[in-house]
């Protein structure tokens, strides 16, 4: 009959029993058995079964069990079957609870021969659970002891923000639902069960804070920190106090990675990379256009040389110039409403500047009120921001509150490039290198001036060509007569 094909003779299953009564008797336990306490292990109910799920325990701890008595219903990949006890005694403790899974051969409960052995059975359950923890995921369900410390949900997401898309980080991710309900998709629930993740500790990134499968996976990975996965662990600045030595680790790892090591390998994104990728995809929804202009920088450079001894940096000076120019063009630091039906004019001119991180990340520290704060203070602020950014100690407000972004690749000798607009802002400015260029001057002569290329990428839903052009005109005026920046 067909059912004979269902079952594999090995793995401690009595075939005859299965055939007649759909119940199974375990063969004699092979190992880890002391005289007084015997373990009940997950039987192989079919040739293809690698793990089984406990449907229900027919006996509870403390119940007497006799040989051949069904004690547990196990669901394999094929069927639900009763599993019989192989030994007489008292069910001491259950290691794998109802609804949980265990690998074939893993202990799921312990049977004590006498009441005197009960304590030992319980102890065994504890130690077995702990010992089994490092084993392949769904095995050995250590009660409490092996439960991964739930990572604070905020920690998992905080580092996600420092993408170039600073003003619009995957913010909803971190925001729990206002009503406190947990809404998780069917697959997320299954995964949470399998990976032993408490859904209450998972921040949902889906619509209205819904928890998706990837949220659960991310949390599970974060929770499994001691095992491996240095990336997500390190990317938790919020946990910095607890794990102070952590941050340098990935940096070193990154530095130590040679090109040849990378060849032919595929590496999953780190949290930060994933956030960048997500933001980049998000940006495709915005109709972007670009306007560029050449600006002479001789006077600007001269000013910079003059101020440098006072601690003024080029970056701050540039931010200041942009801030001053933005003041008369409110639409350039506005944002399109999320529903695409209006313009939100921002109160403050917060200039975000993209900074490459040593370990390959990208962060956008924000110089707030670049139009109002004086150039010296702005420079000091910038120095502070950069220092703390490298230590991954920025507060979210310090990298996601920008209302206009500058990306500068001038120091690499880049002439001109094209930046991607961070979602939630109106424009980003790509700054090329300033270099001596032969120009026809206004008075009809040929001269050599230092010229840099500025390229604005803007959201055409709210910024039109003329808006961007007018802003560039103002900026050109500011940079070409920079003395006003000192006022």
């Amino acid at each position, binding site marked *: 009959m067909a059912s004979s094909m269902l079952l594999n003779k090995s793995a401690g299953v009595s075939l005859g029993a299965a055939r007649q009564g759909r119940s199974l008797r375990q063969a004699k336990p092979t190992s880890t058995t002391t005289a007084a306490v015997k373990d009940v292990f997950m039987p192989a109910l079919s040739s293809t079964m690698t793990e089984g799920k406990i449907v229900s325990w027919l006996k509870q701890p403390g119940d007497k069990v006799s040989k051949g008595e069904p004690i547990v219903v196990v669901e394999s990949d094929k069927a639900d079957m009763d599993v019989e006890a192989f030994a007489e005694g008292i069910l001491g403790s259950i290691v794998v609870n109802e609804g949980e899974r265990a690998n074939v051969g893993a202990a799921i409960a312990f049977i004590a021969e006498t009441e005197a052995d009960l304590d030992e059975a319980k102890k065994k359950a504890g130690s077995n659970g702990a010992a089994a923890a490092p084993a392949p995921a769904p095995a050995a369900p250590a009660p409490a002891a092996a439960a991964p410390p739930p990572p604070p949900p905020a920690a998992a997401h905080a580092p996600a923000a420092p993408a170039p898309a600073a003003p619009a980080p995957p913010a909803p991710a971190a925001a729990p639902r206002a009503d406190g309900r947990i809404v998780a998709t069917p697959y997320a629930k299954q995964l949470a069960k399998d990976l032993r993740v408490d859904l209450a500790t998972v921040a949902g990134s889906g619509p209205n804070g819904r928890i998706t*499968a990837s949220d659960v996976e991310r949390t599970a990975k974060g929770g499994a920190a001691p095992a491996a996965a240095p990336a997500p662990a390190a990317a938790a600045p919020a946990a910095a106090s607890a794990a102070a030595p952590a941050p340098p680790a990935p940096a070193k790892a990154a530095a130590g990675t040679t090109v040849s090591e990378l060849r032919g390998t595929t590496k999953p994104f780190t949290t930060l990379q994933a956030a960048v990728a997500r933001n980049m995809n998000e940006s495709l929804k915005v109709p972007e256009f670009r306007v560029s202009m050449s600006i002479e920088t001789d006077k600007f450079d001269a000013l910079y040389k003059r101020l440098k001894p006072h601690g003024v940096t080029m970056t701050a000076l540039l931010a200041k110039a942009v801030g001053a120019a933005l003041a008369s063009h409110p639409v350039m630091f506005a944002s399109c409403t999320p529903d695409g039906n209006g313009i939100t004019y921002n109160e403050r001119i917060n200039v975000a500047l993209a900074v490459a991180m040593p370990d390959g990340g990208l962060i956008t520290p924000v110089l707030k009120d670049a139009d109002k704060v004086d150039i010296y203070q702005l420079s000091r602020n910038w120095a502070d921001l950069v220092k703390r950014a490298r230590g991954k100690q920025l507060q979210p407000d310090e990298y996601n509150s920008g209302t206009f972004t500058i990306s500068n690749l001038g120091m690499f000798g880049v002439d001109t490039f094209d930046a991607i607009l961070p979602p939630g802002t109106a424009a980003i400015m790509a700054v090329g290198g300033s270099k001596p260029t032969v120009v026809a001057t206004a008075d009809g002569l040929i001269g050599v001036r230092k010229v840099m290329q500025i390229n604005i990428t803007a959201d055409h839903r709210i910024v039109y060509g003329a808006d961007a052009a007018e802003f560039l005109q103002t900026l050109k005026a500011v940079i070409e007569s920079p003395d006003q920046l000192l006022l």
Partner: protein
Amino acid sequence: MASFTAHSTKAQASLASSQQAKLVSARPQRSTVRCNASLPVSLDSRQLNQAVNRCIRVSRHVATRSSRGQRCAVVAMAGAKYDYDLVIIGCGVGGHGAALHAVEQGMKVAVIEGHDIGGTCVNRGCVPSKALLAASGRIRDMKNEMHMKSMGIQVGSVSFDRAGVAAHATQLASAIQGNLKRSLEALGVDILIGQAKFVDNHTIKYGLPGRVDVGGQVTAKDVIIATGSVPFVPPGIPIDGKTVFTSDHALKLEWLPNWVAIIGSGYIGLEFSDVYTALGCEVTFIEAMDKIMPGFDTEIARMAERLLIKGRPIDYHTGVIATKVTPGVPGVKPVEIELTDFKTKKVVDTLEVDACMVATGRAPYTNGLNLGSIGVETDRRGFVPVSEKMEVLGSDGKVVPNVYCIGDANGKYMLAHAASAQGISAVENMLGRPNVLNHLSIPAACFTHPEVSFVGVTQEKAEEMAKEQGFPLGVAKTSFKANSKALAEKEGEGMAKMLYRKDTGEILGVHIIGLHAADLIHEASNAIATKQTVQDIKFAVHAHPTLSEVLDELIKSAHVTPPSSSSNSSAAKAGAKQPVAA
């Protein structure tokens, strides 16, 4: 007629007026009719329609008659008193099946269709959904790396184009619709366009709202109501066609919501869960009954749950009804579904999903037939009451002469092929050959991966029958795991089960879940329909290796012990060999 012949050729005049005349080939005549139909003539549209229709019909009848000798008698008779022998209201699979059989029996037939030729099945049901299932099934297969690997196949990344999958379904529906229409035309069945209304039990008025150029009135000796059904939507559920929709919209596959709640876990819901999960969506079932897949045999349902629900991104809520559904905006605002306990009537949960599909069954489409004019009232849900011979019953419970109702409209067994079988039965009855369709011989199938199919009664029902009627019940089971062909396909999941009378060998029901179960069920349904017993079909030979051997093994493992031969010992012996549930 006369006014028409005035505008037509001589050949046609003679053709139109001489139904009995044995004319030669029909082809040239038919083409002349077509030419004429497009001529600007001074007839009013109704007359023209009728005249043209009649002309086409006559020419075809002559053609069919030339090959089918003596049937002209019937035609001639009809011609004398009625326009047609039979008018069928509704041209779905049921109407089509009835029309084919009626023509075969020499009747003069017209169908009246108010919407799409082919009805629900072809346009918004079984046919396009099979296209979606075929495409998504392959996607599921190819995405199952482990399965592919186990056969030594390596698959790169698998991707699909939603619009392409959707187009496949639309194209299939229109192709089948075309086939259906042509098959009717080729047989000389007149297709009248419009929504039908009874004037009396021999007269039907038809027309389309707002159109004066279509419609008319026809008379027929017999009338079949085959108007079918529409998706049933429970009160409190507003259908917006975008985020809250029925199978009608879902078949268009206009978008793929990340998370779909499906209200109802019957065939329609299950099939769509199969499509949606293969295409990467997650599904939540909402079922009012206490268990999921309530219509299935319990054991089959348990296996179906393991094969079709667990291990897929599906969860479910049972014993609850969706009392309030608030549509959302795709990608912006989720759909909210308020769940109320079916028994306590208390709100127990609120779901937030991206879309909600309502698959709570189908409601008969019998409005507007003016059934009152023939003294008929539909039941509370709108079904037309019928006798077992498919004769329509009046409000007084008596048969309304010459009016029949088949298919979803009578609610006896809401499946396309059941409608068709009922149509054939109705035609037999109108020809004076009493015929009662055995609904227990009609197979049903759910085209998930793997498929589920059954015919006859469930084990629960069979046990009840055995107890009541006092016969010994036999239960035979086989597994697909023992089938070489299934194993070759690496699709060994599944089982077949047969319920039979141990004393007589009568087959009461067969249930299959597994690879191609829908195709395998027919051996069993044919046996039941032709009243073959287990002993009769035991000696049938099945090609090896084929999936049909699953049934071969099933039948061979059944043991019949006629009560005459020392019943005690042999019954005990059979009992030992066979799991008996009675």
